[in-house]
């Protein structure tokens, strides 16, 4: 017997897509039955109260979560988001309902042992409800009370050797595509770099010292499966410098119809026979492919590495061997000054595990030093860049100026020349000027 009537939410139990309402009800039942005989550490009926408060929002068209409440674990500035219900008398089970962010394994691979251990903690000490995963990438445990926070942290670190993720004005939990673990396009080991930098910067992750949040994301290639270019203050996107490798026999197999184009991604509709001219050559954005006499040729110097030809014929074309990553800076969502895409800062960087990624760390630290010095409170680095200019960032990052950093040169000639740019500097003598010009 449900604790609250939820006629509106119940309508979300029908339809084919997985229903979060059905699942919360399933959890409510499991907790009510308590077949394992657990001594639940927060109210048993919190899933039901969550449904109750959500139903109320469906009626009111307004949220019933209060804002704020600083809670956390000792010594950390992030990892926990305080949350209180604004109808605590009606829904005591969720009166206090804090979120805990837990560091996910990079690439989000799990074994069931780890998952079962994680949910065991959350079944006992939390609501039993999670987000797998939060949008930043962490595991999100949804709803517990303040006295449980240290206990959860203790069990995570002692029993599972796992830490909390980031929240607040700090480095957020870095996230990566699955990269080399299962993708032939990966130009560098995204997961290892992500892991290494996450470990290197634990202090920055847990103790807010920045003007605002800072995100790293790692895409193994320009396809951008974790949306690094759009979602991270510093994006590491795999790329290559040399030639796309062409297997002419496989090209012939695509042309002959023996292999489906685009790895079969269009199989649901009859698009007609594969037409290499129309589907590959003509769509290449830099028009650097020719197909003649059964042979595909790429003028690699003109290729912009958009991935289209490779995505279309993955068995015939492979990314080059001289691999590394491009580094882009400054992506963010619209708040406050409108959305920003990452801007290309370093066209090509080696991703070198041998020296513990030192050149990447040097770059990161240069950029942070500048932002911590120049950034205003609650200003994302993309906004600092906009305010002070790309050149200031390039200078601070200590990277060479390069035409690849712009789409096109400036439209206005209001150039901020510096004294040292000009022969003789800016110091001049008015009397000397007057010798040549009457007053």
């Amino acid at each position, binding site marked *: 017997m449900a604790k609250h009537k939820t006629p509106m939410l119940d309508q979300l139990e029908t*339809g084919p897509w997985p229903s979060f309402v059905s699942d919360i009800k399933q*959890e409510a039942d499991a907790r009510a039955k308590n077949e394992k005989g657990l001594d639940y*550490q927060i109210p048993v009926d919190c899933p039901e109260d969550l449904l109750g408060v959500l139903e109320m929002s469906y009626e009111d068209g307004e949220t019933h979560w209060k804002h704020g409440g600083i809670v956390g674990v000792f010594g950390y500035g992030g990892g926990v988001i305080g949350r209180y219900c604004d109808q605590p008398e009606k829904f005591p089970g969720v009166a206090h309902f804090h979120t805990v962010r837990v560091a996910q394994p990079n690439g989000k691979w799990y*074994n069931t042992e780890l998952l079962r251990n994680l949910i065991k903690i959350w079944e006992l000490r939390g609501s039993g409800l*999670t987000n797998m995963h939060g949008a930043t990438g962490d595991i999100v445990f949804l709803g517990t009370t303040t006295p449980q926070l240290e206990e959860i942290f203790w069990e995570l670190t002692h029993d599972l050797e796992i*830490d909390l993720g980031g929240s607040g004005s700090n480095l957020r939990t870095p996230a990566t595509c699955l990269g080399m673990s299962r993708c032939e396009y990966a130009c560098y080991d995204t997961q290892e770099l992500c892991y290494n930098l996450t470990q290197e910067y634990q202090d920055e992750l847990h103790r807010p010292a920045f003007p605002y949040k800072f995100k790293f994301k790692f895409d193994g290639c320009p396809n951008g499966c974790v949306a690094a270019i759009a979602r991270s203050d510093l994006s590491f996107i795999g790329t290559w410098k040399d030639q796309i490798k062409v297997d002419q026999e496989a090209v012939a197999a695509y042309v002959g119809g023996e292999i489906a184009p685009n790895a079969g991604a269009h199989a649901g509709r009859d698009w007609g026979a594969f037409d290499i001219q129309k589907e590959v050559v003509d769509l290449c954005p830099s028009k650097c492919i020719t197909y003649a006499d059964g042979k595909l040729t790429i003028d690699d110097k003109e290729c912009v590495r958009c991935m289209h030809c490779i995505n279309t014929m993955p068995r015939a074309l492979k990314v080059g061997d001289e691999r590394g990553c491009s580094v882009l800076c400054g992506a963010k969502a619209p708040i406050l000054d409108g959305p920003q895409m990452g801007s290309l800062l370093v066209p090509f960087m080696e991703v070198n595990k041998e020296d513990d990624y030192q050149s990447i760390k040097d770059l990161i630290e240069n950029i942070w030093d500048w932002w911590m010095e120049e950034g205003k409170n609650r200003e994302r680095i993309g906004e600092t860049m906009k305010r002070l200019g790309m050149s200031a960032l390039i200078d601070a990052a200590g990277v060479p100026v390069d035409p690849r950093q712009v789409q096109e040169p400036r439209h206005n000639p209001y150039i901020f020349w510096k004294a040292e740019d000009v022969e003789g500097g800016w110091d001049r003598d008015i009397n000397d000027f007057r010798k040549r010009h009457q007053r």
Partner: protein
Amino acid sequence: MAFISSGYNPAKPMEGRISDIGPRHFGEYLPPVIKENFGKWDYHEIIEPGILLHVAQSGDKTYTVRAGTARLMSVTHIGEICDIADKFSGGYVRFTTRNNLEFQVETEEAAKELKSFLNDQKFPGGAHKFPVGGTGAGVTNIVHTQGWVHCHTPATDASGTVKATMDVVFDDFQSMKLPAPVRISMACCLNMCGAVHCSDIAILGIHRKPPLLDHKYLDNLCEIPLAVAACPTGAVRPSKIEIDGETYKTVAVKQERCMFCGNCYTMCPSMPLADKDGDGIALMVGGKISNRITKPAFSKVVVPFIPNEPPRWPTMTKVIKKILDTYAADANKYERLGDWANRIGWERFFEKCELPFSEHLIDDFRDPAYYTWRQTTQFKW
């Protein structure tokens, strides 16, 4: 309920404390075939919707079965996922960035068997638990934010709008008949934790009424200078007000300058702006992040406002379906939604999708607005 201690001693919080250890290394969780062929994959194929084949240089093969989920999931549900992984995929499972599940199996037969098993799992209300799909030129799972389930600033619900949308586009989740992949994303306020600003179709919760002012409490709950500084348009200023003969320090809001971003509320709980009639949804389209053929692009607002219609948001889902179907019928193979709209022209996009164009769709927010106005006489009637 008796308190169960983990071993943590509040009297000595530093005793035995472990901190800053980060995540576990991902290498511990890779299925054997993935580990052995790490960095040595040769090519992949989509065998059928929801089933991928990856072939390594060594000749090793692995089949991936991909299934959608509601990302809000219970521990009971995760337990079910574990049971499936133990039974079918050697105890390994992966979550994708878009909240799909992936199981690795060894043979095509095993993949098909797992696919039909997953498709058979249903909740009592009839919804699938693990519908297989989300590959290739189709719609994949919607990334989204917290909504009314857990956040203080939402203008709409997230899980509910996503469920309603996925129900309507479910066929395109389980098939691959669109011209190109379509990524739908959802964020319940302008903060866009779900960062929808570069998605083919974006569902965005928006407020339309300036903040309410809880004058009597404001100075106690908020740092007034922070609330003032938070406003990106300078609409908030310190002020005083007299109520029942008493003077309160508070703020005043220049309402015509408000763009309803909610930043002031983030800084000051005494400035709520949610409202049943004021709040609703804006739809944005034409963004992408991949560099394939064309550059990454921002989503554009094409419907400035749709009222909240819980539990199923029928107007919103109808418009989404119309846009998706029009695109599917009209676009070229490999052409992303935004590239199609750019090719036919946005004026034509509105015509074909039968969407009205209003003054709310002409950007007037600071400098970047200028780059969205038309500076040519090349246009279409």
